[in-house]
Each structure stands twice: as C-alpha cells, then as structure tokens.
C-alpha cells in the first residue's frame, strides 16, 4: 500500500495544509496564498493519475514506446493560467477592501460592519 499510494498521501497532506490556511487564518492575502497551495496539491494529484512507470512526456517520437496520458496535462495546463487570473481577481478585491476598511483582516472587517449596523439602527 505504501509503495503504491505514497504519492497520493503526500499530496493529500499538501492539500490539507492549504485548506487549513484558508479556514483558520483571518488575513485575506494569507487565505489567497493558502488557496493556491491547495490548488497546487490538486494539480499534482491530477497529473500523478496520468503518470505511467517508465513513461515519457506525451510528445510522440519514433524511439519512445510508453507515454504518460496527455489529457490530465491539458486540463491542468489551462487550470494554472485560469488559477492565476482568478487569484488576480481575489487580490483586486482585497485591495478594494483595504481601501474602504483600512484592513485585510476578516475579523476587523466584520467588526466594522457590525459597528456600522449599530449606528444605523440608533439613527433610525
């Protein structure tokens, strides 16, 4: 079991570290970093499913017999570029939140929102 599944387990550990950062850290930039760690874990897991022992990169040539599967690679290739584009959207949102709240800590943003709501309630 260890000899055949060790890659998957190590990658699960990697994903879980990313998930932990996303859930338990309050800083939004740290959350985004955690999200990309998780993402890389998933990418590697996908690619590892297409790997064959003694295989070669799926670029056909005459003196190669075994190739790893190209499909997971195609899916992950596009996912990486989409991943950085969505990371940029997240970062842009964080910048806007910082500009109006003066912080990127989730707790403080929620605190400010609660204060604002109380003030509104008192005024009306």
């Amino acid at each position, binding site marked *: 079991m260890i000899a055949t599944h060790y890659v998957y387990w190590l990658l699960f550990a990697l994903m879980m570290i990313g998930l932990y950062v996303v859930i338990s850290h309050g800083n939004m930039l740290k959350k985004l970093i955690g999200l990309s760690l998780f993402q890389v874990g998933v990418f*590697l897991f996908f690619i590892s499913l297409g790997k064959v022992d003694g295989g070669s990169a799926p670029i056909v040539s005459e003196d190669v017999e075994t190739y790893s599967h190209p499909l997971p690679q195609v899916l992950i290739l596009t996912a990486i570029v989409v991943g950085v584009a969505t990371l940029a959207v997240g970062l842009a949102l964080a910048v806007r939140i910082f500009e109006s709240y003066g912080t990127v800590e989730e707790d403080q943003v929620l605190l400010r929102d609660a204060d604002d709501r109380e003030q509104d309630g008192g005024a009306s």
Partner: protein
Amino acid sequence: MTTFVLINVTLLAILIATALTISGMRTLYAATMLTALFSLVTACLFVLLDAVDVAFTEAAVGVGISTVLLLGVLSLTRSREAVTPRLRRLPGAVVVLFTGGTLIYASQDLPEFGSPTTPVQTHPLTDVYLRQSQEDIGIPNTVTSVLASYRGLDTLGELVVVFTAGVAVLALLGPLMQPAEAREREVLDLVDYRVLRVVTGMLMPFILLFALYVLFHGDFGPGGGFQAGVIFASGFVLYGLVFGLDRAQQVLPRRVLWVLIAVGPVLYAGVGVANMLLGGAFLDYDTFAPDDAAAGQHIGILLVESAIGVTVAAVMTSIFFGFANRVESSR
C-alpha cells in the same frame, strides 16, 4: 526506479515543508517569496511526472506573474498578518483532520501509482490521443493536439474565463484613472540602477523572441499559446518594473491592451464560426483544407493558439498595469 521514488519523495517533502513554513509565517513578504520557491519545486515535480508543458506553465506563472502580483498587493496593503486567535485554529484543524482522513480512506480505491493497467491508461481514448492523433492531426506534441483540437471547445471556455477575470480586475481597480495624473509622479527608483537598466534592455528582445518561439513551436515540443502569452506578459512586466509604468504604457498603450483582450475570444470563436460556414461542425478544422485534413488542422491550431497567446498576454499585462497604477497613485 528507486531513483525516481527517491527524487519524488524528496521533492514532495520539500513542498510540504515549504507549505508548513508558509502557513506559520506572519511576515507576508517572506511568505510570498516562499510561494515562488514552492512553484519552482512544483515545476520540477511536473517534469518528473512527464508533464513538461504543465511544468513550463507553472514556472512562468507561479514564479513570475503571481509573485509580482502578490508583492504589488502587499505594497498596497499591510504586509504583516495579525495573530490568529487560538480559538479560531480549532475548527480549521478539525475540518482538516476529518477531510484528510476521508481522503486517505477513499484513496484505497485509487489505482496504483504509475501502473499501466489503471482506468486512465486502458481507456480507448488513450489510444486515440497517442496513436490515432498522428494520422488525424499529425502533430507530435499530443498535449497541443488535445488542447487545441480534440478539446477545442473546452479551451475556448477557459479562454473566456481568463478574459472575464481580466475584465473583472480592470473593473475593480479602475483603469480609467487619468494618465496625466500619473505622469507627474516620479518613475520607479529601479531605473537608477544601471545594471538593471542595461540588462533589462538587453533581455527584452530575447524574452519576446522566446515567447514567439514557444508559441509557434508548440506543435513539436513543449509550448503553446498559454505559455507564450505568460512569457510575453512577463517581458512587459519586467520592463514596467524597471523603467516605470509610464514608459511601459507608451510602448503598450492601455487602449491597445483592452482591444487585444477581446481579440482572442473573438478570433477563437470566429474560427469556429468559419468552420460552420465552410460546412463543418463548430471548431472542425478539417474544413479549412478539405483535401488534406492534417493541413487544415495545422491552420486551425495555429490560429487558435495565437488567439490564446494574444488574450493571455494582454490580460496578464493589463492586470499588472492595474495593480501598478494603484501603487503609483497611492504614494
């Protein structure tokens, strides 16, 4: 075989150690630099797992673009994380232990790593992609033929996602800031370093030439539109970092970039519509050269890859310009 296992486990151990350090770090600048290291090690692992195209993309995206973006955002916001209260860590730990346990339990059903008898390898599609594609499309790099031809519709969807993300960042960071306002400000200090200035000037043509090589050589070796677009963008990001935003935007005006962002999806979808007008299905490149299917496929793949390259380069460059504009105007 044992060497493979040894390198694999070592690289994965480095990855996990880096991830743990990142999660414990409160100085986000250092954490960002470690994510760059993380991406570099990931790229090595991709090479080890035979995914050279993916490694190429990860090295260009993870080490280059996303590090620059994160650093830019850190200079706009706070670079120190507040201490996480102990109470907050508990639910995270519980969820992670539960999810991890479930994943490991479920992994008993997974096929052996690297075995040639897994469902992935024995599926008839494998033969189509690896053998039949040589007659259908005639391109040695099967990743390119799957990306641009067999699953062309899928890739069009991904390109639209990149396009949408680019538009979203432009909408959030207000690209309509007056250029006159930015011109009054000082250029970035990096231009005062002669070494950086001279080396950047010398590197620029080679970076752009390399991007073009990657774009047009994608049929025969690792490469293609996505990688080329990111390398192209990183050339302009380097130029903007060293010579300041104003000069970079003189070379590549924002309005031109906005048009280029839209050119890709339009060209890609246009190829599909042209195929339909020629009597085929959407994105059926065979119709470009009815007598010689492979030649038609070549034309189609080249057009589609160029469309991808243009949009990815334009989106990445304008995302960088968007963040850098904020940095300059907030000084």
